[in-house]
Protein backbone atom coordinates (compact mmCIF):
# COMPACT_ATOMS: atom_id res chain seq x y z
CA UNK A 1 0.00 0.00 0.00
CA UNK A 2 1.38 3.40 -0.93
CA UNK A 3 0.78 5.87 1.85
CA UNK A 4 2.97 8.79 0.91
CA UNK A 5 4.86 10.22 -2.06
CA UNK A 6 8.37 8.92 -2.66
CA UNK A 7 11.44 11.11 -2.60
CA UNK A 8 14.06 11.48 -5.28
CA UNK A 9 14.38 8.45 -7.49
CA UNK A 10 13.51 6.05 -4.72
CA UNK A 11 10.92 3.37 -5.24
CA UNK A 12 8.47 1.70 -2.90
CA UNK A 13 10.16 -0.21 -0.13
CA UNK A 14 9.29 -3.89 -0.43
CA UNK A 15 10.82 -7.14 0.63
CA UNK A 16 11.07 -9.66 -2.15
CA UNK A 17 8.85 -11.93 -0.07
CA UNK A 18 6.13 -9.29 -0.12
CA UNK A 19 6.08 -9.42 -3.94
CA UNK A 20 5.55 -13.18 -3.96
CA UNK A 21 2.43 -14.73 -5.52
CA UNK A 22 1.75 -18.43 -5.79
CA UNK A 23 2.64 -20.05 -9.10
CA UNK A 24 5.09 -17.42 -10.39
CA UNK A 25 8.63 -18.34 -11.36
CA UNK A 26 11.73 -16.47 -12.54
CA UNK A 27 13.51 -19.39 -14.17
CA UNK A 28 12.95 -21.84 -16.99
CA UNK A 29 14.26 -25.38 -17.26
CA UNK A 30 14.85 -27.78 -20.12
CA UNK A 31 11.82 -29.93 -20.87
CA UNK A 32 13.75 -33.17 -21.05
CA UNK A 33 12.91 -35.64 -18.28
CA UNK A 34 14.74 -38.93 -18.52
CA UNK A 35 12.37 -40.64 -16.10
CA UNK A 36 8.75 -40.38 -16.97
CA UNK A 37 7.57 -40.82 -13.39
CA UNK A 38 8.35 -38.15 -10.81
CA UNK A 39 11.38 -39.22 -8.84
CA UNK A 40 10.53 -37.55 -5.60
CA UNK A 41 8.09 -40.32 -4.86
CA UNK A 42 11.00 -42.77 -5.02
CA UNK A 43 12.80 -41.05 -2.13
CA UNK A 44 12.06 -43.14 0.97
CA UNK A 45 9.70 -41.27 3.23
CA UNK A 46 12.14 -41.00 6.08
CA UNK A 47 14.47 -38.87 3.89
CA UNK A 48 11.75 -36.61 2.52
CA UNK A 49 11.39 -32.99 3.36
CA UNK A 50 8.05 -32.16 4.99
CA UNK A 51 8.67 -28.50 5.87
CA UNK A 52 7.48 -26.10 3.20
CA UNK A 53 9.65 -23.24 2.01
CA UNK A 54 8.47 -19.66 1.75
CA UNK A 55 10.90 -18.84 -1.06
CA UNK A 56 9.38 -15.94 -3.01
CA UNK A 57 7.46 -16.76 -6.18
CA UNK A 58 8.13 -13.99 -8.64
CA UNK A 59 8.73 -13.33 -12.33
CA UNK A 60 11.98 -12.26 -13.96
CA UNK A 61 11.12 -8.60 -14.65
CA UNK A 62 10.03 -8.17 -11.05
CA UNK A 63 13.25 -9.74 -9.78
CA UNK A 64 15.33 -7.42 -11.91
CA UNK A 65 13.44 -4.35 -10.78
CA UNK A 66 13.69 -5.43 -7.17
CA UNK A 67 17.45 -5.84 -7.19
CA UNK A 68 18.21 -2.83 -9.37
CA UNK A 69 16.15 -0.64 -7.08
CA UNK A 70 17.83 -2.13 -4.05
CA UNK A 71 21.23 -1.38 -5.52
CA UNK A 72 20.20 2.26 -5.83
CA UNK A 73 19.93 2.46 -2.05
CA UNK A 74 23.69 1.98 -1.72
CA UNK A 75 26.75 4.14 -1.75
CA UNK A 76 29.51 2.54 -3.81
CA UNK A 77 32.94 3.54 -5.06
CA UNK A 78 31.58 3.84 -8.60
CA UNK A 79 29.03 6.41 -7.43
CA UNK A 80 30.53 8.06 -4.34
CA UNK A 81 33.77 9.09 -2.61
CA UNK A 82 34.75 7.00 0.43
CA UNK A 83 37.44 8.73 2.52
CA UNK A 84 37.39 5.66 4.73
CA UNK A 85 40.55 5.31 6.79
CA UNK A 86 42.42 1.98 6.69
CA UNK A 87 39.91 0.63 4.18
CA UNK A 88 41.54 1.88 0.95
CA UNK A 89 38.37 2.31 -1.05
CA UNK A 90 39.99 2.79 -4.43
CA UNK A 91 38.58 2.39 -7.92
CA UNK A 92 37.93 -1.20 -9.05
CA UNK A 93 39.08 -1.54 -12.67
CA UNK A 94 36.54 -2.96 -15.09
CA UNK A 95 38.95 -5.11 -17.06
CA UNK A 96 39.46 -7.15 -13.87
CA UNK A 97 35.79 -8.02 -13.84
CA UNK A 98 35.73 -8.97 -17.50
CA UNK A 99 38.73 -11.30 -17.13
CA UNK A 100 37.35 -13.00 -14.03
CA UNK A 101 34.21 -13.93 -15.97
CA UNK A 102 35.98 -15.70 -18.84
CA UNK A 103 34.80 -19.31 -19.07
CA UNK A 104 38.40 -20.49 -18.77
CA UNK A 105 38.60 -18.95 -15.29
CA UNK A 106 35.03 -19.04 -13.97
CA UNK A 107 34.11 -22.57 -15.07
CA UNK A 108 37.09 -24.55 -13.84
CA UNK A 109 36.77 -27.01 -11.00
CA UNK A 110 39.29 -27.02 -8.14
CA UNK A 111 39.61 -30.83 -8.31
CA UNK A 112 40.70 -30.73 -11.95
CA UNK A 113 44.16 -32.20 -12.44
CA UNK A 114 47.01 -29.66 -12.65
CA UNK A 115 47.61 -30.32 -16.34
CA UNK A 116 44.07 -29.10 -17.11
CA UNK A 117 44.45 -25.81 -15.21
CA UNK A 118 47.93 -24.67 -16.25
CA UNK A 119 46.73 -21.16 -17.12
CA UNK A 120 45.16 -20.65 -13.70
CA UNK A 121 48.17 -22.08 -11.89
CA UNK A 122 50.41 -19.75 -13.87
CA UNK A 123 48.33 -16.79 -12.68
CA UNK A 124 48.62 -17.95 -9.07
CA UNK A 125 52.32 -18.73 -9.30
CA UNK A 126 53.17 -15.41 -10.89
CA UNK A 127 50.98 -13.55 -8.43
CA UNK A 128 52.94 -15.13 -5.57
CA UNK A 129 56.19 -14.08 -7.22
CA UNK A 130 55.03 -10.52 -7.83
CA UNK A 131 53.74 -10.14 -4.27
CA UNK A 132 57.13 -11.36 -3.00
CA UNK A 133 58.84 -8.69 -5.10
CA UNK A 134 56.50 -5.92 -4.00
CA UNK A 135 56.75 -6.75 -0.28
CA UNK A 136 60.30 -8.11 -0.06
CA UNK A 137 59.22 -11.50 1.23
CA UNK A 138 60.46 -14.94 0.17
CA UNK A 139 57.21 -16.87 -0.34
CA UNK A 140 53.46 -16.34 -0.36
CA UNK A 141 50.39 -18.43 0.31
CA UNK A 142 47.28 -17.20 -1.44
CA UNK A 143 44.87 -19.36 0.53
CA UNK A 144 43.43 -16.99 3.19
CA UNK A 145 40.10 -15.57 2.09
CA UNK A 146 40.26 -12.17 3.82
CA UNK A 147 42.59 -9.93 5.79
CA UNK A 148 41.48 -11.27 9.16
CA UNK A 149 41.81 -14.77 7.78
CA UNK A 150 45.36 -13.97 6.69
CA UNK A 151 46.12 -12.76 10.20
CA UNK A 152 44.77 -15.97 11.66
CA UNK A 153 46.94 -17.94 9.25
CA UNK A 154 49.94 -15.76 10.18
CA UNK A 155 49.40 -16.42 13.89
CA UNK A 156 49.19 -20.16 13.18
CA UNK A 157 52.54 -19.88 11.40
CA UNK A 158 54.03 -18.19 14.47
CA UNK A 159 52.88 -21.02 16.70
CA UNK A 160 54.05 -23.72 14.34
CA UNK A 161 57.45 -22.04 14.07
CA UNK A 162 58.10 -22.03 17.82
CA UNK A 163 56.59 -25.46 18.39
CA UNK A 164 58.87 -26.98 15.81
CA UNK A 165 61.79 -25.48 17.75
CA UNK A 166 60.38 -27.02 20.90
CA UNK A 167 59.93 -23.52 22.29
CA UNK A 168 56.62 -23.67 24.18
CA UNK A 169 57.15 -20.74 26.52
CA UNK A 170 56.45 -18.02 23.97
CA UNK A 171 52.76 -17.46 24.59
CA UNK A 172 52.44 -13.69 24.28
CA UNK A 173 51.79 -11.43 21.32
CA UNK A 174 52.44 -7.69 21.58
CA UNK A 175 50.02 -5.35 19.86
CA UNK A 176 50.20 -1.54 20.05
CA UNK A 177 47.08 0.23 21.33
CA UNK A 178 46.61 1.84 17.92
CA UNK A 179 46.34 -1.49 16.08
CA UNK A 180 43.40 -2.75 14.06
CA UNK A 181 40.89 -4.70 16.19
CA UNK A 182 41.50 -7.83 14.18
CA UNK A 183 45.12 -8.09 15.42
CA UNK A 184 44.33 -8.93 19.04
CA UNK A 185 41.31 -11.01 17.99
CA UNK A 186 43.40 -13.15 15.62
CA UNK A 187 46.16 -13.62 18.17
CA UNK A 188 43.68 -14.58 20.89
CA UNK A 189 41.92 -17.02 18.59
CA UNK A 190 45.25 -18.82 18.21
CA UNK A 191 45.57 -19.07 21.97
CA UNK A 192 48.08 -16.26 22.49
CA UNK A 193 47.90 -13.88 25.38
CA UNK A 194 47.64 -10.33 24.03
CA UNK A 195 49.84 -7.62 25.52
CA UNK A 196 48.95 -4.07 24.53
CA UNK A 197 51.63 -1.38 24.51
CA UNK A 198 50.89 2.34 24.57
CA UNK A 199 51.78 4.79 21.81
CA UNK A 200 54.28 7.50 22.51
CA UNK A 201 53.46 11.23 22.55
CA UNK A 202 54.16 11.50 18.81
CA UNK A 203 51.60 8.78 18.01
CA UNK A 204 54.28 6.26 17.14
CA UNK A 205 55.44 3.14 18.94
CA UNK A 206 56.97 3.98 22.33
CA UNK A 207 60.32 2.20 22.07
CA UNK A 208 60.94 2.14 25.80
CA UNK A 209 57.52 0.73 26.63
CA UNK A 210 57.89 -1.76 23.81
CA UNK A 211 61.29 -2.95 24.99
CA UNK A 212 59.90 -3.40 28.47
CA UNK A 213 57.04 -5.50 27.15
CA UNK A 214 59.33 -7.81 25.17
CA UNK A 215 60.61 -10.81 27.06
CA UNK A 216 61.38 -14.44 26.42
CA UNK A 217 57.68 -15.25 26.62
CA UNK A 218 56.95 -13.01 23.64
CA UNK A 219 56.27 -14.88 20.43
CA UNK A 220 55.45 -12.06 18.10
CA UNK A 221 55.06 -8.33 17.66
CA UNK A 222 52.21 -7.28 15.36
CA UNK A 223 52.56 -3.91 13.70
CA UNK A 224 50.97 -2.00 10.93
CA UNK A 225 53.26 0.50 9.26
CA UNK A 226 52.26 3.18 8.54
CA UNK A 227 50.27 2.88 11.73
CA UNK A 228 46.56 3.65 12.01
CA UNK A 229 47.36 7.34 12.50
CA UNK A 230 48.89 7.23 9.04
CA UNK A 231 52.38 7.79 10.45
CA UNK A 232 55.38 5.80 9.34
CA UNK A 233 57.18 4.21 12.29
CA UNK A 234 60.49 5.98 11.92
CA UNK A 235 62.21 3.69 14.39
CA UNK A 236 61.16 0.64 12.47
CA UNK A 237 64.71 -0.68 12.00
CA UNK A 238 65.45 -0.41 15.73
CA UNK A 239 62.14 -2.09 16.51
CA UNK A 240 62.73 -5.05 14.24
CA UNK A 241 66.38 -5.38 15.34
CA UNK A 242 65.37 -5.33 18.99
CA UNK A 243 62.68 -7.94 18.46
CA UNK A 244 64.96 -10.23 16.51
CA UNK A 245 67.66 -9.97 19.16
CA UNK A 246 65.11 -11.33 21.61
CA UNK A 247 64.07 -14.11 19.26
CA UNK A 248 60.69 -12.50 18.57
CA UNK A 249 58.97 -12.75 15.18
CA UNK A 250 57.58 -9.63 13.51
CA UNK A 251 54.18 -9.59 11.90
CA UNK A 252 53.17 -6.93 9.39
CA UNK A 253 49.49 -6.09 9.05
CA UNK A 254 49.23 -5.14 5.38
CA UNK A 255 45.96 -3.24 5.69
CA UNK A 256 47.98 -0.05 5.26
CA UNK A 257 50.27 -1.10 2.42
CA UNK A 258 48.81 1.30 -0.15
CA UNK A 259 51.36 4.12 0.35
CA UNK A 260 54.39 1.82 0.21
CA UNK A 261 54.33 0.37 -3.32
CA UNK A 262 57.77 0.88 -4.81
CA UNK A 263 58.67 3.16 -1.91
CA UNK A 264 59.60 0.78 0.90
CA UNK A 265 59.03 -2.93 1.53
CA UNK A 266 57.94 -4.66 4.77
CA UNK A 267 60.45 -7.42 4.10
CA UNK A 268 63.30 -4.89 4.01
CA UNK A 269 62.05 -3.34 7.26
CA UNK A 270 62.66 -6.71 8.89
CA UNK A 271 59.20 -8.26 9.03
CA UNK A 272 58.99 -12.05 9.03
CA UNK A 273 55.32 -12.46 8.16
CA UNK A 274 52.94 -10.16 6.26
CA UNK A 275 49.37 -10.39 5.20
CA UNK A 276 47.92 -8.27 2.40
CA UNK A 277 44.36 -7.20 1.75
CA UNK A 278 44.00 -7.56 -2.00
CA UNK A 279 40.64 -5.78 -1.79
CA UNK A 280 42.46 -2.72 -0.50
CA UNK A 281 45.82 -2.08 -2.12
CA UNK A 282 45.29 -4.34 -5.13
CA UNK A 283 41.97 -2.90 -6.31
CA UNK A 284 39.65 -5.89 -6.04
CA UNK A 285 36.08 -4.89 -5.20
CA UNK A 286 34.84 -4.89 -1.62
CA UNK A 287 31.52 -6.35 -2.74
CA UNK A 288 29.64 -4.77 0.15
CA UNK A 289 31.74 -6.74 2.62
CA UNK A 290 33.44 -9.51 0.69
CA UNK A 291 34.73 -11.57 -1.00
CA UNK A 292 38.25 -10.40 -0.37
CA UNK A 293 41.60 -12.13 -0.19
CA UNK A 294 44.34 -12.03 2.45
CA UNK A 295 47.52 -13.69 1.12
CA UNK A 296 50.28 -14.31 3.62
CA UNK A 297 53.96 -13.79 2.84
CA UNK A 298 56.91 -15.05 4.87
CA UNK A 299 60.67 -15.05 5.07
CA UNK A 300 62.63 -18.22 4.33
CA UNK A 301 62.62 -19.64 7.86
CA UNK A 302 58.81 -19.82 7.86
CA UNK A 303 58.27 -21.30 4.39
CA UNK A 304 57.98 -24.91 5.65
CA UNK A 305 54.91 -23.97 7.70
CA UNK A 306 52.86 -22.35 4.92
CA UNK A 307 49.48 -23.88 4.01
CA UNK A 308 49.27 -26.62 1.38
CA UNK A 309 49.23 -27.08 -1.50
CA UNK A 310 52.28 -25.05 -2.57
CA UNK A 311 52.20 -24.02 -6.22
CA UNK A 312 55.53 -24.73 -7.89
CA UNK A 313 57.05 -24.43 -11.32
CA UNK A 314 59.19 -27.21 -12.75
CA UNK A 315 60.47 -27.07 -16.34
CA UNK A 316 57.78 -24.51 -17.21
CA UNK A 317 55.04 -26.78 -15.86
CA UNK A 318 53.04 -25.71 -12.83
CA UNK A 319 52.54 -28.29 -10.09
CA UNK A 320 50.80 -28.65 -6.76
CA UNK A 321 52.89 -29.87 -3.87
CA UNK A 322 50.98 -31.06 -0.81
CA UNK A 323 53.92 -32.93 0.64
CA UNK A 324 54.96 -30.36 3.25
CA UNK A 325 55.36 -32.20 6.56
CA UNK A 326 55.61 -29.05 8.67
CA UNK A 327 52.71 -27.21 7.04
CA UNK A 328 50.00 -25.85 9.31
CA UNK A 329 47.51 -27.51 6.90
CA UNK A 330 44.75 -25.63 5.17
CA UNK A 331 43.03 -22.49 6.40
CA UNK A 332 40.49 -22.69 3.58
CA UNK A 333 39.64 -25.19 0.89
CA UNK A 334 41.74 -25.29 -2.28
CA UNK A 335 43.53 -22.14 -3.43
CA UNK A 336 41.54 -19.43 -1.66
CA UNK A 337 39.38 -16.92 -3.49
CA UNK A 338 40.79 -17.56 -6.95
CA UNK A 339 38.50 -15.03 -8.64
CA UNK A 340 39.79 -12.29 -6.34
CA UNK A 341 43.42 -13.36 -6.78
CA UNK A 342 42.94 -13.24 -10.53
CA UNK A 343 41.67 -9.65 -10.38
CA UNK A 344 44.69 -8.61 -8.32
CA UNK A 345 46.96 -10.29 -10.87
CA UNK A 346 45.35 -8.32 -13.68
CA UNK A 347 45.74 -5.11 -11.67
CA UNK A 348 49.45 -5.64 -11.01
CA UNK A 349 50.10 -6.52 -14.65
CA UNK A 350 48.20 -3.39 -15.69
CA UNK A 351 50.13 -1.13 -13.29
CA UNK A 352 53.50 -2.76 -13.93
CA UNK A 353 56.85 -1.90 -12.43
CA UNK A 354 56.65 1.51 -14.08
CA UNK A 355 53.25 2.42 -12.58
CA UNK A 356 53.54 1.02 -9.09
CA UNK A 357 55.27 3.92 -7.39
CA UNK A 358 52.96 6.59 -8.75
CA UNK A 359 49.98 4.81 -7.13
CA UNK A 360 51.51 5.25 -3.69
CA UNK A 361 52.87 8.70 -4.38
CA UNK A 362 49.42 9.97 -5.32
CA UNK A 363 47.87 8.24 -2.31
CA UNK A 364 50.36 10.04 -0.05
CA UNK A 365 49.96 13.33 -1.88
CA UNK A 366 46.15 13.22 -1.65
CA UNK A 367 46.26 12.46 2.09
CA UNK A 368 48.74 15.20 2.92
CA UNK A 369 46.89 17.72 0.80
CA UNK A 370 43.65 16.97 2.63
CA UNK A 371 45.43 17.06 5.98
CA UNK A 372 46.84 20.51 5.23
CA UNK A 373 43.51 21.86 4.10
CA UNK A 374 41.53 20.33 6.97
CA UNK A 375 43.94 21.36 9.73
CA UNK A 376 42.43 24.84 9.52
CA UNK A 377 39.00 23.40 10.31
CA UNK A 378 39.65 20.44 12.57
CA UNK A 379 42.06 19.46 15.27
CA UNK A 380 44.64 16.97 14.00
CA UNK A 381 46.29 15.55 17.11
CA UNK A 382 49.40 14.07 15.45
CA UNK A 383 49.90 16.59 12.72
CA UNK A 384 52.98 15.30 10.96
CA UNK A 385 53.61 14.30 7.35
CA UNK A 386 51.36 11.32 6.93
CA UNK A 387 51.36 8.46 4.51
CA UNK A 388 48.02 7.40 2.98
CA UNK A 389 45.76 8.54 5.83
CA UNK A 390 45.54 10.78 8.87
CA UNK A 391 43.35 11.15 11.91
CA UNK A 392 41.41 14.28 12.87
CA UNK A 393 39.22 14.68 15.93
CA UNK A 394 36.01 16.50 16.72
CA UNK A 395 36.44 16.15 20.48
CA UNK A 396 36.09 19.92 20.88
CA UNK A 397 32.38 19.48 20.07
CA UNK A 398 31.84 16.93 22.80
CA UNK A 399 30.41 19.58 25.08
CA UNK A 400 27.71 20.19 22.49
CA UNK A 401 26.88 16.51 22.58
CA UNK A 402 28.39 15.87 19.16
CA UNK A 403 30.56 12.91 18.28
CA UNK A 404 32.59 11.75 15.31
CA UNK A 405 29.76 9.57 14.06
CA UNK A 406 27.44 12.62 13.84
CA UNK A 407 29.85 14.28 11.43
CA UNK A 408 30.16 11.03 9.52
CA UNK A 409 26.38 10.72 9.18
CA UNK A 410 26.04 14.32 8.04
CA UNK A 411 28.62 13.76 5.28
CA UNK A 412 26.27 11.24 3.69
CA UNK A 413 23.87 14.11 2.97
CA UNK A 414 26.61 15.71 0.87
CA UNK A 415 27.20 12.54 -1.13
CA UNK A 416 30.42 11.58 0.62
CA UNK A 417 30.75 8.41 2.63
CA UNK A 418 31.65 8.80 6.31
CA UNK A 419 35.30 8.44 7.25
CA UNK A 420 36.22 5.66 9.66
CA UNK A 421 34.89 7.03 12.95
CA UNK A 422 35.81 6.36 16.57
CA UNK A 423 38.98 4.60 15.46
CA UNK A 424 41.87 4.37 16.26
CA UNK A 425 41.09 4.12 19.94
CA UNK A 426 44.06 6.31 20.87
CA UNK A 427 42.24 9.41 19.62
CA UNK A 428 38.93 10.40 21.13
CA UNK A 429 36.17 11.07 18.60
CA UNK A 430 38.47 10.21 15.77
CA UNK A 431 37.79 10.74 12.09
CA UNK A 432 40.22 8.61 10.13
CA UNK A 433 40.54 9.87 6.59
CA UNK A 434 42.06 8.01 3.65
CA UNK A 435 41.34 9.51 0.24
CA UNK A 436 43.29 6.95 -1.90
CA UNK A 437 45.01 7.79 -5.17
CA UNK A 438 41.96 7.36 -7.39
CA UNK A 439 40.26 10.58 -6.31
CA UNK A 440 40.78 13.88 -8.13
CA UNK A 441 41.80 17.15 -6.52
CA UNK A 442 38.30 18.49 -7.19
CA UNK A 443 36.75 15.71 -5.13
CA UNK A 444 39.15 16.39 -2.26
CA UNK A 445 38.29 20.09 -2.40
CA UNK A 446 34.61 19.17 -2.14
CA UNK A 447 35.33 17.24 1.03
CA UNK A 448 36.92 20.34 2.52
CA UNK A 449 33.88 22.41 1.57
CA UNK A 450 31.63 19.86 3.25
CA UNK A 451 33.69 20.13 6.43
CA UNK A 452 33.42 23.92 6.29
CA UNK A 453 29.65 23.61 6.26
CA UNK A 454 29.61 20.97 9.00
CA UNK A 455 31.86 22.93 11.32
CA UNK A 456 29.52 25.90 10.93
CA UNK A 457 26.54 23.68 11.65
CA UNK A 458 28.27 22.19 14.67
CA UNK A 459 28.74 25.64 16.10
CA UNK A 460 25.38 27.13 15.15
CA UNK A 461 22.95 24.23 15.25
CA UNK A 462 24.45 21.10 16.78
CA UNK A 463 21.02 19.48 17.10
CA UNK A 464 20.69 19.25 13.32
CA UNK A 465 23.90 17.24 13.10
CA UNK A 466 22.69 14.79 15.71
CA UNK A 467 19.72 13.86 13.54
CA UNK A 468 21.62 13.57 10.24
CA UNK A 469 21.42 12.17 7.65
CA UNK A 470 18.25 13.62 6.11
CA UNK A 471 18.52 12.65 2.46
CA UNK A 472 19.26 8.94 2.61
CA UNK A 473 16.66 6.21 1.99
CA UNK A 474 16.27 5.92 5.77
CA UNK A 475 17.03 8.05 8.82
CA UNK A 476 19.09 6.62 11.67
CA UNK A 477 18.07 3.02 12.42
CA UNK A 478 17.08 1.95 15.91
CA UNK A 479 20.04 -0.30 16.67
CA UNK A 480 18.99 -0.84 20.26
CA UNK A 481 15.71 -2.43 19.24
CA UNK A 482 17.49 -4.42 16.52
CA UNK A 483 19.76 -5.92 19.16
CA UNK A 484 17.22 -6.38 21.95
CA UNK A 485 14.67 -8.09 19.79
CA UNK A 486 16.53 -9.37 16.75
CA UNK A 487 14.44 -9.83 13.60
CA UNK A 488 16.81 -11.68 11.35
CA UNK A 489 14.59 -13.18 8.69
CA UNK A 490 11.31 -12.89 6.82
CA UNK A 491 9.96 -15.63 9.05
CA UNK A 492 10.80 -13.66 12.22
CA UNK A 493 9.27 -10.57 10.69
CA UNK A 494 6.03 -12.12 9.51
CA UNK A 495 5.54 -13.81 12.86
CA UNK A 496 6.16 -10.50 14.55
CA UNK A 497 3.63 -8.72 12.37
CA UNK A 498 0.97 -11.23 13.42
CA UNK A 499 1.47 -10.40 17.06
CA UNK A 500 -1.37 -8.04 18.07
CA UNK A 501 0.56 -5.92 20.52
CA UNK A 502 3.54 -4.92 18.48
CA UNK A 503 3.92 -1.18 19.04
CA UNK A 504 7.58 -1.30 18.04
CA UNK A 505 6.98 -2.49 14.52
CA UNK A 506 7.95 -0.19 11.71
CA UNK A 507 5.43 0.97 9.17
CA UNK A 508 6.20 0.37 5.53
CA UNK A 509 5.86 2.95 2.83
Amino acid sequence: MITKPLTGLMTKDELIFERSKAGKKGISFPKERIFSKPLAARIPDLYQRKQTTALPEISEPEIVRHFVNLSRKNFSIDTHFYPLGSCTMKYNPKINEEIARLDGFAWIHPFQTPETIQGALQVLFELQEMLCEITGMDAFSLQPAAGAHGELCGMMLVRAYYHQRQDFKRTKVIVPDSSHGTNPASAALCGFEVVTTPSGPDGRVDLIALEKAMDDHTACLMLTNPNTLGLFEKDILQITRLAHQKGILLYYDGANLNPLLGIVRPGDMGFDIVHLNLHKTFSTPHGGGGPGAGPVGVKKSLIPFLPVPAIKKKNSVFELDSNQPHSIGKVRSFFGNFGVLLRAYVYIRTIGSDGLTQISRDAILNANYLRRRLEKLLEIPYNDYCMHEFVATVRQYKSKGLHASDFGKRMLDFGIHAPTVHFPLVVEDALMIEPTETESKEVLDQLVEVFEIMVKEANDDPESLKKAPYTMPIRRPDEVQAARKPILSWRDYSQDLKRPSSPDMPSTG
Partner: protein
Amino acid sequence: MNIPKDLRYTKTHEWIKPNQETVTVGITDYAQHEISDIVFVELPKVGQEAAQGKAICVVESVKAAFDIYAPVSGVVKSINTTLESDPAMANKDPYGNGWFFELTPADSEEINNCLSHSEYEDFLKQSTH
Protein backbone atom coordinates in the same frame (compact mmCIF):
# COMPACT_ATOMS: atom_id res chain seq x y z
CA MET B 1 25.36 9.00 40.67
CA ASN B 2 23.32 6.78 42.93
CA ILE B 3 25.46 4.73 45.35
CA PRO B 4 23.25 3.19 48.05
CA LYS B 5 24.85 3.10 51.50
CA ASP B 6 23.77 -0.41 52.44
CA LEU B 7 25.62 -2.19 49.61
CA ARG B 8 29.23 -3.26 49.02
CA TYR B 9 31.02 -2.67 45.70
CA THR B 10 33.85 -3.84 43.44
CA LYS B 11 36.28 -1.89 41.32
CA THR B 12 34.69 -3.60 38.31
CA HIS B 13 31.38 -1.88 39.18
CA GLU B 14 29.34 -4.73 40.60
CA TRP B 15 27.30 -4.22 43.79
CA ILE B 16 26.79 -6.90 46.47
CA LYS B 17 23.99 -7.09 48.96
CA PRO B 18 24.50 -9.52 51.84
CA ASN B 19 21.36 -11.52 52.71
CA GLN B 20 20.89 -14.19 55.36
CA GLU B 21 22.61 -17.10 53.63
CA THR B 22 23.37 -15.57 50.26
CA VAL B 23 24.46 -12.40 48.50
CA THR B 24 22.66 -10.63 45.65
CA VAL B 25 24.77 -9.15 42.84
CA GLY B 26 24.05 -6.53 40.22
CA ILE B 27 25.80 -3.74 38.34
CA THR B 28 26.04 -0.20 39.66
CA ASP B 29 24.27 2.88 38.41
CA TYR B 30 27.64 4.10 37.13
CA ALA B 31 28.14 0.85 35.15
CA GLN B 32 24.69 0.88 33.55
CA HIS B 33 25.21 4.51 32.59
CA GLU B 34 28.59 3.80 31.00
CA ILE B 35 27.29 0.76 29.12
CA SER B 36 24.20 2.75 28.07
CA ASP B 37 21.38 0.79 26.40
CA ILE B 38 21.74 -2.78 27.60
CA VAL B 39 20.45 -5.09 24.87
CA PHE B 40 21.27 -8.52 26.26
CA VAL B 41 22.38 -10.14 29.49
CA GLU B 42 23.90 -13.61 29.38
CA LEU B 43 23.25 -14.81 32.91
CA PRO B 44 25.18 -17.58 34.65
CA LYS B 45 23.55 -20.99 35.16
CA VAL B 46 22.02 -21.88 38.49
CA GLY B 47 24.49 -24.17 40.23
CA GLN B 48 27.46 -22.69 38.38
CA GLU B 49 30.57 -22.09 40.49
CA ALA B 50 31.85 -18.54 40.74
CA ALA B 51 35.39 -17.51 41.64
CA GLN B 52 36.04 -14.09 43.11
CA GLY B 53 37.24 -11.67 40.44
CA LYS B 54 36.58 -14.06 37.55
CA ALA B 55 34.13 -13.30 34.73
CA ILE B 56 30.80 -15.00 35.27
CA CYS B 57 28.41 -13.40 32.81
CA VAL B 58 28.25 -10.96 29.92
CA VAL B 59 26.31 -7.76 29.31
CA GLU B 60 25.90 -6.46 25.79
CA SER B 61 25.16 -3.01 24.52
CA VAL B 62 24.72 -2.26 20.82
CA LYS B 63 28.40 -1.72 20.26
CA ALA B 64 30.15 -3.55 23.08
CA ALA B 65 30.15 -6.58 25.34
CA PHE B 66 31.24 -6.37 28.97
CA ASP B 67 32.23 -9.10 31.39
CA ILE B 68 30.62 -9.13 34.81
CA TYR B 69 32.92 -10.46 37.53
CA ALA B 70 31.93 -12.47 40.57
CA PRO B 71 32.50 -10.24 43.62
CA VAL B 72 32.88 -13.28 45.87
CA SER B 73 33.40 -17.00 45.28
CA GLY B 74 30.47 -19.35 45.63
CA VAL B 75 27.68 -21.14 43.83
CA VAL B 76 24.94 -19.43 41.83
CA LYS B 77 21.69 -19.97 43.69
CA SER B 78 19.25 -18.06 41.51
CA ILE B 79 19.24 -15.72 38.53
CA ASN B 80 17.02 -12.81 37.55
CA THR B 81 15.20 -14.17 34.51
CA THR B 82 13.46 -10.81 34.05
CA LEU B 83 16.68 -9.62 32.43
CA GLU B 84 16.35 -12.26 29.72
CA SER B 85 13.12 -10.76 28.40
CA ASP B 86 13.72 -7.18 29.54
CA PRO B 87 17.45 -6.41 29.64
CA ALA B 88 16.66 -2.69 29.88
CA MET B 89 15.62 -3.33 33.50
CA ALA B 90 19.32 -3.23 34.39
CA ASN B 91 19.35 0.35 33.08
CA LYS B 92 16.08 1.40 34.67
CA ASP B 93 16.46 -0.11 38.10
CA PRO B 94 20.04 -1.31 38.60
CA TYR B 95 19.76 -1.76 42.37
CA GLY B 96 16.25 -3.19 42.40
CA ASN B 97 14.49 -5.22 39.71
CA GLY B 98 17.66 -5.11 37.62
CA TRP B 99 19.66 -7.43 39.93
CA PHE B 100 21.66 -10.16 38.17
CA PHE B 101 22.09 -13.23 40.36
CA GLU B 102 22.20 -14.56 43.88
CA LEU B 103 25.24 -16.42 45.17
CA THR B 104 25.80 -18.73 48.11
CA PRO B 105 29.27 -17.58 49.19
CA ALA B 106 31.97 -20.18 49.75
CA ASP B 107 33.81 -17.96 52.22
CA SER B 108 31.88 -15.42 54.24
CA GLU B 109 35.09 -13.41 54.79
CA GLU B 110 35.59 -12.62 51.10
CA ILE B 111 32.94 -9.94 51.10
CA ASN B 112 35.22 -7.90 53.32
CA ASN B 113 37.54 -7.45 50.32
CA CYS B 114 34.77 -5.46 48.65
CA LEU B 115 34.52 -1.68 48.82
CA SER B 116 32.17 0.22 51.05
CA HIS B 117 29.93 2.83 49.44
CA SER B 118 32.30 5.65 50.39
CA GLU B 119 35.32 3.75 49.13
CA TYR B 120 33.52 3.10 45.84
CA GLU B 121 32.55 6.75 45.60
CA ASP B 122 36.20 7.74 46.08
CA PHE B 123 37.27 5.14 43.57
CA LEU B 124 34.87 6.57 41.00
CA LYS B 125 36.11 10.09 41.68
CA GLN B 126 39.71 9.01 41.15
CA SER B 127 39.12 6.95 38.06
CA THR B 128 36.99 9.51 36.28
CA HIS B 129 39.54 12.27 36.73
